[in-house]
């Protein structure tokens, strides 16, 4: 009698689908709340570097002079401390998960935004033309 419960489980395993998925072909969709990756709505970003200061993994680098915001997705622990620290709420949590393939090269691991005309340059012209002019020269 004692054998019956496990026998039933064992037999059921023979006649039911596997509990696992054929992963690269069948991907479980993530939930809207899943912690996927940190996204930056860069036009809103004021490069205040509060996110970098609060990051427990030191994954974010902000350089105001260079107009640079960079996140190392390998170092990021997706805790969301940067999102809570952000004063202009330009950071958000995306729910899509990066895969190993996304991380296969440096471009996938390190994600950066760059603002062409840094405020420090201060030649008075708009961001777009200044960027274009420097590229042309």
């Amino acid at each position, binding site marked *: *009698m004692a054998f019956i419960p496990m026998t039933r*489980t*064992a037999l059921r395993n023979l006649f039911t689908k596997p*509990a696992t998925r054929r992963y690269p072909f069948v991907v479980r969709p993530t939930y809207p*709340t899943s912690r996927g990756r940190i996204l930056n709505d860069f036009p809103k970003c004021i490069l205040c570097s509060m996110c970098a200061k*609060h990051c427990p993994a030191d994954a974010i680098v902000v350089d105001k002079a260079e107009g640079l915001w960079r996140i190392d997705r390998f170092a990021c*622990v997706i805790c969301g*401390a940067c999102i809570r620290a952000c004063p202009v709420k330009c950071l958000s949590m995306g729910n899509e998960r990066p895969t190993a393939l996304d991380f296969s090269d440096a471009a996938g691991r390190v994600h950066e935004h760059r603002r062409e005309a840094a405020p420090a340059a201060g030649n008075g012209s708009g961001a777009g033309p200044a960027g274009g002019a420097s590229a042309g020269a």
Partner: protein
Amino acid sequence: MSSHEKAAPGPTVIPFGPQHPVLPEPLHFDLTLEDEKVVGAIPQIGYIHRGLELLVEKRDYLDYVHIAERICGICSFMHGMGYCEAVETILGTQVPDRARWLRTFWSELERVHSHLLWLGLAADAFGFENLFHASWRARETVIDVAEETSGGRVIFGSAIVGGVSRDPGDETLRRCMKAIEPVRAEILRLAQVWIGEPTVRHRLSGVGYVSKEMAYTLGAVGPMLRASGVDYDARAQGYEAYGEIEFKPVVETAGDCMARVLVRLGEIEQSFRILDEVVAKMPAGPVSVPIKGMPPVGESWIRLEQPRGEVLYFVRSNGTRQLERFRVRTPTFANIPAMVEAIKGVSLADVPTVILTIDPCISCTER
């Protein structure tokens, strides 16, 4: 005169671990054997020390919670929550009601998935692979629920100083409780196997006995203590929402490996009941209060009941944004003396089973 004549061998010393097929984490034992029987055991830890306690001196006290969570991969939420509670005590912060109940929800969810993980590992320790897989299959649904409610599968990341960072919403909580309903039925079926299966009984009954006096004197905690008949559960202090929830500690009296299995099986069922109650009684309102400024000079300590037993957090603040000291006394560390006593007298083949039944978490222990 010949070498044959003086061959009265002394006790054999067998090194056990840190790399051993049955150990999920590095723990080393020098086992002294007479024939197949263990007469002495000297434990040794120190293989995965990461210095997480020291980091508290370098990080902002509000951000350190994410590091505290990473002390352990299984009771992660409770480590974060324990740190938050200790800091909130210094700050004198009153956490909103809904945050207290959500913390209770995630604590119990974590207890279920930790115990299911352990049931699998314990089955694996004595070679019952089918039971191992069945336990972990059930656990998968519980982890999915954790992801849907908190965003993380094992590191929930939702405890913050002043409350919780996420509010899953009542609708999601109710849907999640429906989703884990089949797990409850599955666990009842697995419990019948654990209790009724003669091979399981043969490996666990009467093995690794710890008497009530010994468990109490050696300072055992958690299921190890309750399996020896001591009626103690740190949740009874009523931290978070536990003061408003009806529950009684699961206690067994046999003190052997089987009793420790029964305690954990009972606690899974108890956790499901608590989860039901928490979702039914979940109050509305905000989930966090904003924390501003520096913590005042002071210190505090608090105790929680983790899946593995009672854990203690001590925090001391010097009035700056970096705390001066953070200390965790983990349940595994408290259970090691009792485990050493339990190992003495068993045969070598039973050592993995006895080690597994305290549910050792070496990452916690060494931090």
